[in-house]
């Protein structure tokens, strides 16, 4: 099966190929479901394959959080907790998506990211000013 990379603008041919692949996947899924229903005993392989395809289809159709907002946060937040901060926003995004749908969840993600950036920037500027003051004091003391 041909795997298509997501996250960039796709050509018409690629979209058609992806649609075909999705239809094939759904056919496979149906076949597996029927096979599973007809089995008298638990077939671990069939069950495993069925669950794998279910998870694959679910993941493919789950929208990801806005990558630009994520990038901004990762770039501006201190490295010690940038990952945890983005993870927290992703967790809220997943909850919002279940409640309100993907579009509204993405808007809320951007709003939260914008609200979070202001205190992070202030903290960053505060630290920079503190270091500038220390450096200027050292320079003055040493007479540079």
């Amino acid at each position, binding site marked *: 099966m041909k795997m298509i990379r997501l996250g960039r603008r796709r050509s018409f041919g690629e979209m058609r190929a992806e649609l075909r692949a999705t239809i094939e996947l759904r056919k496979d899924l149906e076949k597996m479901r029927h096979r599973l229903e007809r089995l008298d005993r638990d077939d671990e392989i069939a069950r495993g394959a069925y669950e794998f395809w279910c998870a694959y289809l679910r993941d493919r159709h789950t929208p*990801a*959080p806005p990558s630009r907002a994520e990038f901004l946060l990762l770039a501006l*937040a*201190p490295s*010690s*907790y940038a*990952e*945890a*901060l*983005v*993870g*927290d*926003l*992703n*967790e*809220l995004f*997943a909850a919002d998506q279940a409640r309100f749908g993907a579009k509204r969840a993405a808007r809320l993600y951007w709003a*939260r990211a914008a*609200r*979070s*950036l*202001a*205190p*992070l920037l*202030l*903290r960053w500027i505060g630290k920079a000013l503190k270091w500038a003051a220390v450096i200027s004091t050292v320079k003055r003391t040493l007479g540079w």
Partner: protein
Amino acid sequence: METQLTTLEQHVLLAVMGLHPNAYGVAIQDHIRDRTGHEPSIGSIYAALDRLGEKGFVSSRQGEPTAARGGKRKIYFTITGPGQHTLRQSLQAISSLSRGLRWKEATA
């Protein structure tokens, strides 16, 4: 030692104590919102935790990454001894300042 705490730092420390040992960003935000009606942003909570961590008032440990978080790890925070001491002093100062005050009746 620096003993001045901002209101947000007080709220964050109280939330970290209340949620122990499961205090992480979203849980702290929910805890503060449910009890004060004010929702600080996740960024301001982490900025406050960063300041408190620098002062030695909170310690942190990493959790496991989960799929709902896009594979990102949680950071769990715990209040330290000096953190508890400073928080108690700060709350006692407010309590002392507010003792004996006569509040105006709310007018309809």
